[in-house]
């Protein structure tokens, strides 16, 4: 009887997990108000949809095991109504819309209200040394331009640096055969990890006066980007998820943008429908993280154990096959097993 019940629970858990892994875009924001003990995150748009899917699958996994008491995993989108109350008992806060605003909220407001931050950049100067960046998956960042527009198929890192420092402002300065038109470089929001990583990858230019800041990262549907002369950085993994795995929504989609080559290397392996491994093995490859607090990450209490159960090297994200499928079908690359859950800090 007990064995039958165990098998039944396992089947239910597997069915729920597989359904979560193969579904299209996951629901935005937590469907219920998370409880104080739950693991709740905010931050980057790049891994927002992935964490919505993680939340659904992980909570389904626990339920399938008959576990009604372990902390559940929830993730707040980077877009949507604001302010938000992240969990019961937490104060309302302005919705964080990127890793920068996520970390600011994480490090400054009611600490128990946010347990982790989705980060699409590594630690950098100014981050508290008590913020631990736990590796989750690999991504890459390239540049995009409108399909049928004036941009070429390839730009070098040096050309991109010149475009964003505004020393190159016309396509003719790139190649005389290109259109005689003014280049319109855009950058995502100031706290975007895609923005800071991209700028670092092209040599850290100080964005010049020709650069416009503002669109949400990885959303080519913003009307300002529908222009033949736009250049806009983009998460390659997020792009792959949107284009090849049905992760796009009406707003979270490439729109008219297509991802372009850097230094002659294509960012996407269109045959395998993944990030091109050769592209990821350049300065344009990056690691995606969950940021947690050092003291909580190493604590031996139930909260510390719950964090490690989700994010640790032996945790659900690194070890569960459904999580692996979700990482791949959101367009990202998995890390070597031993590297998943490894940590770093500034």
């Amino acid at each position: 009887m007990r064995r039958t019940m165990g098998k039944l629970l396992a089947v239910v858990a597997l069915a729920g997990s597989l359904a979560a892994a193969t579904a299209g875009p996951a629901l935005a924001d937590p469907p219920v108000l998370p409880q104080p003990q739950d693991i709740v995150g905010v931050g980057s748009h790049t891994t927002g949809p992935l964490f919505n899917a993680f939340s659904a699958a992980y909570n389904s996994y626990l339920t399938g095991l008959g576990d009604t008491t372990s902390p559940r995993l929830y993730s707040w989108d980077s877009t949507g109504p604001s302010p938000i109350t992240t969990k019961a008992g937490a104060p309302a806060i302005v919705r964080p819309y990127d890793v920068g605003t996520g970390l600011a909220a994480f490090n400054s407001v009611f600490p128990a209200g946010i347990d982790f931050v989705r980060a699409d950049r590594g630690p950098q100067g100014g981050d508290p040394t008590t913020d631990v960046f736990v590796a989750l998956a690999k991504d890459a960042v390239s540049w995009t331009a409108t399909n049928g527009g004036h941009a070429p198929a390839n730009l070098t890192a040096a050309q991109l640096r010149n475009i964003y420092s505004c020393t190159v402002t016309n396509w003719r300065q790139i190649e005389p055969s290109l259109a005689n038109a003014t280049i319109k470089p855009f950058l995502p929001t100031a706290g975007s990890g895609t923005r800071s990583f991209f700028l670092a990858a092209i040599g850290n230019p100080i964005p010049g006066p020709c650069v416009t800041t503002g669109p949400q990262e990885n959303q080519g549907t913003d009307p300002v980007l529908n222009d033949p002369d736009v250049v806009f950085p983009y998460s390659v993994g997020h792009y792959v998820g949107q284009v090849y795995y049905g992760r796009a929504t009406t707003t979270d989609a490439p729109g008219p943008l297509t991802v372009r080559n850097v230094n002659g290397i294509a960012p996407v392996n269109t045959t395998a429908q993944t990030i091109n491994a050769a592209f990821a093995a350049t300065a344009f490859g990056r690691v995606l993280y969950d940021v947690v607090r050092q003291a909580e990450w190493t604590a031996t209490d139930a909260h510390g154990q719950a964090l490690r159960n989700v994010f640790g090297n032996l945790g659900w994200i690194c070890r569960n096959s459904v999580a692996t499928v979700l990482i791949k079908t959101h367009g990202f690359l998995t890390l070597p097993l031993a590297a998943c859950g490894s940590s770093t800090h500034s």
Partner: protein
Amino acid sequence: MSRTRARLAATSAAVVLAVTGMSGAAVADAAPAATAATGSAVVTSSTTFLKDQALNGIVVIPLPTADPAYDSTTGITTTFPVTGGSGDLPAYYGDIDLGGGLLFINLFTGKSATFKQLHFSVGNWQITGVPVGGTSPVALLDPAGDSQVSRANGVQTLTSTDLQVDPAGAQYLDTKLKTSFFKGGQSVGSLAINFTPAS
């Protein structure tokens, strides 16, 4: 019994150090350039692993330019110098070239295997080596446990609380040494790498 095991381990360690010190086995390492990459990979073999090795007649000998040292508490610590590579530890790509080599001997069967051209594959998180007489690298050891990576002042570091035998390495060694001692996932000890890329 435990005293016997301890003596075996100590003897094994002494053999390792003695043979290493006398070894004339030269492993071809890349000549360092003026701006070459620097650093080291430090492998600590735990006393538990050393005892198990000794009981199974297995001796692992670091070959020059690897530098072994023994401590009765922590076990054998072997430092492999960095000789090159363009790895990026915090970004999880590239390779780090290591000097020295590894000689595995089964004292019970007299069989041995030697590896040279050691690398730490950052993308795969594996220490690999090319068997003498072969051309293809074999994955030997994998960092595991709690791992931390960092980059500060141009120096990249990786520390792992566990270091495990890679399944491919276990299969290769068991076959070559005619033993069943090695297992994929077998804990060896720990790993610490520091790496400063060439500039």
